[in-house]
């Protein structure tokens, strides 16, 4: 994990330098499970090893509504702060014991005063101490190339031609998919199978 974070850091730098020159092709991602079924809300991140995470949206938010985290899966680049506005009439106690980011928003209603910053790349599992059923995921990545699949397991990512490595996650699954290497040359379709 530490190794990944390091690499993400390096890649983020490179990405910023490269991004100006040319964003060329659209890469279509099709994620399916071992049985070939399309997987929704799967998270895919591509690394070129030179483009670092850029932080254009320093603040994001995950709303708690109907005793659910909305969106359930959120992908942010490192350094992003996320607020957890409570739109339910009941109070929530949002917490995370994940190593990437440990935090606790003790019983509150409405919008907390301070958003929570996520500096470290990794998966943060969100829970509510009051409502055990509430689960949310924040994927903190140190690359600008990432996407979340739609209902059909499909996501589109704009990438320059070049060499990448990529990884996919399925929320709720502890381990990510195996990191793969790929060379992008023009628009292409990448099929990812999650274990």
């Amino acid at each position, binding site marked *: 994990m530490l190794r990944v974070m390091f690499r993400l850091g390096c890649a983020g730098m490179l990405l910023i330098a490269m991004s100006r020159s040319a964003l060329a092709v659209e890469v279509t991602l099709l994620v399916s499970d071992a049985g070939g079924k399309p997987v929704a809300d799967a998270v895919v991140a591509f690394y070129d090893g030179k483009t670092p995470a850029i932080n254009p949206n320093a603040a994001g938010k995950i709303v708690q509504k109907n005793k659910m985290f909305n969106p359930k899966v959120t992908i942010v680049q490192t350094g992003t702060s996320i607020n957890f506005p409570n739109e339910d009439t009941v109070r929530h106690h949002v*917490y995370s*014991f994940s190593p990437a980011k*440990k935090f606790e928003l003790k019983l509150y209603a409405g919008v907390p005063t301070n958003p929570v910053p996520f500096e470290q790349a990794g998966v943060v*599992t*969100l*829970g*509510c*101490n009051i409502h*055990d*059923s*509430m*689960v949310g995921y924040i994927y903190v990545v140190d690359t600008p190339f990432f996407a979340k699949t739609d209902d059909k397991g499909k996501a589109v990512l704009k990438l320059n031609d070049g060499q990448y490595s990529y990884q996919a996650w399925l929320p*709720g699954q*502890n381990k990510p998919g195996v990191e793969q290497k790929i060379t992008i040359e023009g628009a292409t379709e990448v099929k990812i199978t999650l274990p």
Partner: protein
Amino acid sequence: MIKFKHIRSRIAFTFLTVVVAIQLAGLLPLKYALSKHADTLAAEQINVGERVFVSLLQHNTQSLKQATQVLAADFAFREAVATNDAETIESALESYQGRIRAQIAYYISNNDNLVIGTTDNEQALFGSNAKEDARQAMLENQSGTLKFDIIAGKPYQLITVPVKAPETIGWIVMGFAVDGRLADQIKQLTHLDVTFVQKTHQRDWQLVSSTSTRELSNLLVKTVADIYRQKLSLHRVDLNGQAYHLKIRSLHETKDDALLVVLQGSVEPFTQDLNTLFKVMVLLTFIGVLIFAALIWYVSRKTTEPIAALVNDADNIAMGDYEKEIQVNSTDEVGHLAKALNSMREAVLQRSLRIQRLAFNDELTGLSNRLAFNQGVHQAIMTHADNQQKLSVIVINIHRFKPINQTLGRDFGDDLLRHVGQVLKQNVLSDQDMVARLDADEFAVLLQQTDQAKATRYADKIQQVFERPVSVQGQAIDVRTGIGIALYPDHGLDEESLLNHAETALQESRAKKSPWIVYNTALEIDQSETLTLISDLKEAIQHDQLLLYIQPKIDVTTRRALGGEALIRWVHPEKGMIFPDQFIPFAEQTGVISDITNWMLLRACQVLAGFKKQGLHITLAVNLSTRDLNNMELPEQIGHLLSSHGLDAKSLKLEITEGSLMQDPERAEVVVKKLAAMGLHLSIDDFGTGYSSLAYLRQLPVQELKIDRSFVMFMDKNSGDASIVKSTIDLAHNMGLIVVAEGIENEFVLNQLAKLGCNEGQGYFIGKPMPEKDFSIWLERWEGQNEIDIDIGDDLSYDINPLEIDQQAQDPFKLDNLGE
């Protein structure tokens, strides 16, 4: 098939068999059903117990799970887990384990092999086995089943609860020992004995804990091991003589290890109740059968009693009791049967009466017949024997019935018989007396309690009645009867002998023409001897076995031979010489005497004719019997004989006894007078022995009187005899009769007789009876000696020895001498 003496036994047996069979048919399935039911109940109990057991475990599990979940949901604990704070985790587990009374508690991390436990047993926690178990437990926990395991040789129920943050990051595992406490708890709820049995790779089957006795538990372990091997879950076993249902459930099972719970329910409590029920049923059945048996017995008795009564009645009828009417008490079939029996009885009674009438009655006269009379006499004898009284049996016979029947017709004869029967009946002495018709013209009368005087009085009365002519069919007819009387007990002790003797007396009465004769033994002759002799005698006449003997007769004064008395001898081919006294009496009774007389007359005539040819004019005397004197044709026959032989009537003398004259004096008189009229010489034989009156004799045309030899033989020694002889001679001479003396045995007597004036004489001194040829020789000699002296013709008496004197003397056939 069993044979029964009584119908009621058969009914009772049949119905009882059916009843018992039905009861057994009911009881056996009941027994089967009850034991099956007991089994079912026991099985049901086991099944219910199992459900309760499962439910209990689930409930236990649930509550333990909830308790464990409390820990798992604790934010602080989760934080400790999330931060891998091993010490905190362990202490938290420790305190919580104590709170929920778990024996084992440990935490297993989700993403690595972190295991934190409270147990001291390192191997339990960190052994590869334990880890694997834990993983398995997690998976199974998620599928919601119970999880048991054997950890460090001890069985535990494992409760696994995920720790969520909020995703599952690890599991808390709580282990609760499977021990007696659990078993007790289960038993309390299920009422089944609970036994836990386990097997590990180190140890074979062993008992973990049990609520039942140690002995039974140990037994159970072995049984269960077997059952387990056979993969059976429900089983019925007999342990220590009791039936148990076992429900075996595997709580934990791996290649080497196994933990089984055995729920065991005894069938006993169920069978106990059902057995009691069955026993009650058997008892009720038994009582029912008894009651039924009594009922059947009673009903069948009631049914068959009238039948038995009828059988009794039928037996009575069979034994001849037709008089008693059979009671008809009901209108059912038995009643009908009784009615039928009754009418049968009446019909039989009528028929039997008719048969009796036929058997015991004489149809013609309406009197009893011989059979009835015999019975009547028999019964009378019995009563009279008791009372030592006399009774008399009288047999009455109608003389000349046959010619009456023949000449006047059978109808007339029948009427006559009826009339005679009436007369006999009207004159009986008492109501109990009995009159019967024995034969065609023979009647019998039984007079009860009568002595001889009474009996003869009755006979006299009958005689008197018939002295006057009887009027039958408008015709007057003279009826003559013969009567024989026999008295009980004097003349016989049974009916047969009485009747026989009465008949013998009747014969005598007829023979002697007496109004009646009372039986006496003198009448008896040797019946058996007689019977054979009768037939022999008939043959003798035909085959010339008879011989004519002649006893000479002389003139007492001149001593000249006059002739002789013709006597008969019978030379029987087997018995030799038979003297007349042995066959003449029965010849008289049977009538053969007529033939003999005829033979004698013929032979006498032949002899006389022979002497006449020689120029000898002698006389021969022939004896006539009673029958001959009643034979009206006799004079004619004799006349014919005399003329055919060219003989003069004077040469034949006829000797008749007083008795033969007295039998039927009137008839005899007729015949005698006819004979006398023919010029025949008649002589009264054996004079002095009979009872004939001289007055009567005087009326008869008799020329001669023969003094019986009993007076003559000893007149030389007995003066009484001599005076009788003398007065008889005088008397006879006074009546103008010639006197002949028999039995002259010496010269003295002969001289004496000559002095007394006796005319003729015969006897051994003069000559014994001798054959015809010898008589010729005697004549010559006698005439030769006549002038000189008289010699005893000993040499001529070769066939007569002195011992035969008596027999010869009694000979009714004696040669008479004719005084020319």
